[in-house]
């Protein structure tokens, strides 16, 4: 069998380190001198791309408002900054700029927002005196503007950068974000089955003395999804408590809902994101749960990682490297899908189209149902219904809207877990319509 020495010799490194990079090297251009191809590809996230539901217009313009295609979004977000401005996403190159420019900033945003929009680790070390957890926790009460300025003054005003996913000494993948590290260790500590994360199942069988640590316990394959799970997840990020990834009961939509329902703010009030301006319901807001939804699909169970599809290998001279042009895999079906699925490109596109068409239909149906519920509550209030009479209707709005938003804010139009996304949207519509019935029956209630 091959021994380690032999292997070391074989692994002739295909690159030369011409500059040293370290934990504070957030500028990707510096890393680019050692790894020019990855850097070139990384830079392409600024280019224009287009698919039916994904891609973006590059630097030409801000992406379109989501409400153009989904008018009910304006209704359901009434009373929240997302009703002001909520756009389709763009490539990684724009993450900092888009966050600065969003009109949601008209309502003061929290300093924790930067967790996922900039190369923020040096700042956390600074704020937390080398304890990154403390560093993150120092930001939620600060204003976005203040933290953003400090970051830039320190020279780290970059979108997600090499150092956020790579150990500068070994180039191995690693996660850096405190939110993820806390979230995943809470998930591990729960009893929720996670067949797609074998290292968590393994950790559970051990002594459990040290909390689950993705950087120590995660497999290489899991890391290829964990690095994305640092940001592409549901979260709470505002001024009332520190940034939270709600995974303590599991990743399924009902488990996350349970987590929020059992959470209280430091002042003891039951958790909610905002009070609906038209109905008064206390609403939960879901954000881009790609990691959570992917976790429910058959790809994750088969060990297929985010990077497999969104950063597939490409030939570069005599070697192959990961495509750092993170983007829709549909722009790249041959590399992103065909290594595993040896069927024609057109057929794969056809399968995705079917999945996305069905999801789009259900999404619009569920959106209409929730909007109808809001309208019904508004009308009942006009007709003099009391809070007591509307109690059930308001609870059903919170629930239905949560399910709707979970898939509406997820970014694969159902692809990451087709049946689960359909199930969630089915429940959203069913519950919203039950709400309508409950509101109509108000009149018969005491």
């Amino acid at each position: 069998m091959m021994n380690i020495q032999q292997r070391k010799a074989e692994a002739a490194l295909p690159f030369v380190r011409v500059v040293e990079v370290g934990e504070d090297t957030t500028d990707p251009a510096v890393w680019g001198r050692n790894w020019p191809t990855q850097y070139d590809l990384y830079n392409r996230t600024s280019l224009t791309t287009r698919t039916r539901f994904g891609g973006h217009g590059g630097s030409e313009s801000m992406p379109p408002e989501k409400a153009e295609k989904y008018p009910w979004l304006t209704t359901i977000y009434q009373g929240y900054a997302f009703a002001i401005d909520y756009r389709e996403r763009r490539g990684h190159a724009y993450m900092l700029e888009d966050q600065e420019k969003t009109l949601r900033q008209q309502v003061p945003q929290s300093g924790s927002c930067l967790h996922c929009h900039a190369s923020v680790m040096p700042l956390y070390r600074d704020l937390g005196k080398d304890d990154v957890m403390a560093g993150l926790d120092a930001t939620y009460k600060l204003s976005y503007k203040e933290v953003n300025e400090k970051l830039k003054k320190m020279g780290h005003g970059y979108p997600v950068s090499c150092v956020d996913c790579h150990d500068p000494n070994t180039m191995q993948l690693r996660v850096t974000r405190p939110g993820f590290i806390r979230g995943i260790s809470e998930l591990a500590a729960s009893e929720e089955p996670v067949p797609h994360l074998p290292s968590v199942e393994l950790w559970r069988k051990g002594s459990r003395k040290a909390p689950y640590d993705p950087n120590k316990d995660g497999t290489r394959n899991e890391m290829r999804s964990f690095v994305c799970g640092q940001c592409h997840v549901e979260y709470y990020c505002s001024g009332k408590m520190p940034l939270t990834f709600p995974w303590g009961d599991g990743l399924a939509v009902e488990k996350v809902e349970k987590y929020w329902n059992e959470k209280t703010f430091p002042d003891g009030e039951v958790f909610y994101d905002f009070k609906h301006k038209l109905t008064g319901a206390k609403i939960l807001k879901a954000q881009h749960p790609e990691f959570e939804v992917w976790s429910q699909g058959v790809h994750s169970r088969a060990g297929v990682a985010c990077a497999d599809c969104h950063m597939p290998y490409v030939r570069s001279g005599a070697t192959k490297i990961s495509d750092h042009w993170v983007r829709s895999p549909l722009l790249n079906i041959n590399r992103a899908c065909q290594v595993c699925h040896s069927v024609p490109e057109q057929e794969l596109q056809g399968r995705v189209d079917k999945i996305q068409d069905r999801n789009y239909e259900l999404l619009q149906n569920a959106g209409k149902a929730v909007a109808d519920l809001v309208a019904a509550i508004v009308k009942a209030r006009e007709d003099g219904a009391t809070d007591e009479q509307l109690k059930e209707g308001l609870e059903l709005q919170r629930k239905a809207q949560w399910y709707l938003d979970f898939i509406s804010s997820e970014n694969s139009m159902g692809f990451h877990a087709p049946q689960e996304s359909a199930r969630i949207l089915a429940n959203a519509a069913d519950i919203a319509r039950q709400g309508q019935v409950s509101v109509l029956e108000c009149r018969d209630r005491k």
Partner: protein
Amino acid sequence: MHKLKTFLSNPEDFVGKRTGLLLALLVGFTSGLGIYTFYYAEGFSYMSSDPKVCANCHIMNLQYDSWQKSGHHHSAVCADCHLPHGFPGKYIAKAENGYHHSKGFTFQDFHEPIMIKKKNSEILQANCVRCHADLVAYMRPEAGGARMEVDCVHCHSSVGHGPRAGLGGGYKINRKGEIIP
């Protein structure tokens, strides 16, 4: 007989691992049963690298047929992918596998469809890397050492034997609808 069967299917339970292997060789190749199997299944040629040797067991026909249609038909034979490269690993693995195969074939008690076991999939991985070292150099830990954890077959599962789906794999059926073994 029952005891012998239990022993054959899990010799490590009776003795230490290393002795288990030696015993397996002994039992697999020198008992009357073993010799018969070994001889009849043309066991001596098992020690060569000719793919026909593997296909000598009809059990291996599916893999043999599908390999002939695969992209590697001209670049690699069974042994290149499935046996460790170099002495003495090659012969230990052959003996150990030989034992499993003869036993499986004789008792017909193996899992169907045949699924590669952990040890053999490690050998396989090492062989992919051996031939494609330059190409995959970037994928390997800079520090060297540990086994690559992303298996090549995670993406390239079809390289040796083509895609899996189909009419039960590589079986041929004539116009009468009869299956040709």
